[in-house]
């Protein structure tokens, strides 16, 4: 059983500037078929949401940073940004945090 609190995060991973993003280019190329113009700079990334049990937000963020840089993103080609979605008590309110 974990004491402390539960923190819900989102990690947004995007291709670094200058890295070719063929998915983004394909999305952009398809916009004409929808009759949409004036949209540019489409970059396709990935969003991962997760809950971390930790005593403080700072410690929870450190865990997220470590797994975001090691696993969720490849620092050679991708950047990531961490976003706090909510916090609750670790043992009882995970469902609430998740909501």
């Amino acid at each position, binding site marked *: 059983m974990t004491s402390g609190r539960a923190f819900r995060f989102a990690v947004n991973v995007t291709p670094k500037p200058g890295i070719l993003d063929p998915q983004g280019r394909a999305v952009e190329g398809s916009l004409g078929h929808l009759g949409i113009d004036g949209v540019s700079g489409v970059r396709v990334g990935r969003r991962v949401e997760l809950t971390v049990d930790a005593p403080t937000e700072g410690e929870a963020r450190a865990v997220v940073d470590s797994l975001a840089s090691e*696993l969720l993103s490849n620092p*050679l*080609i991708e950047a990531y940004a961490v976003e706090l979605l909510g916090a609750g008590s670790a043992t009882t309110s995970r469902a609430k945090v998740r909501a």
Partner: protein
Amino acid sequence: MTARIGVVVFPGSNRDADAMNAVRVAGGEPVVLWHESADLAGVDAIILPGGFAYGDYIRAGVIARFSPVMRAVAGFAGEGGLVLGICNGFQVLAEAGLVPGALLRNRGLRFVCRQVSIAPERLDSPFTAGVGERRPLRMPVAHGEGCYFADEQTLDALEADGQVLFRYVHADGTLAADADDPANPNGSRRGIAGVTNAAGNVAGLMPHPETAVEAILGSDDGLLLIRSLVDSAAARATSGRSLVAAGR
């Protein structure tokens, strides 16, 4: 002596049997290395085969990187052991930082499955020592994320240090360095099809030498690479053992 070549099997590997067959055809003895075990069974060299290890989730190769066997492979490589990553195996090596660079989604977005031509940049590596004069080498590619990427500074350094092992070429042997060249199947920077680490004992390439080892398969050019690995591993094992014997 017969070199014992470990072939790592991850959940999602699908070219492991081809790699084992290639090792046999090249005169070596294949040894299965299961991803959950850190025991390398005393093998003389290791192949990371193609496939979709751990479903290619997150990014191709990254989850495999953290498996018990890969920690052992990293140790083996650190001690100078020969490691060859093919296709998904190359992606695993790149994610693990055992070879430089990264493999991006193919420039054309499509999964590419066809014969390509490659040429070795050097013949003094343990992976190409037996390649001889035959050019270009014909073998298949089959991947969705094979676009080799490193920044310009790194690419310059790799070229200066002789770490570029293979490049895509046309049938007549001319280089396909441009990312849009039709002979460059995935848009790889400077036409790079394979690289080594700085020490030269770890190599990765996107094409599949292990499925081009018998004429009936359409090409046996890949056998030259697999045999180079098997023979280099045997030579190293023999000299290692004689050093141990001499030390007694």
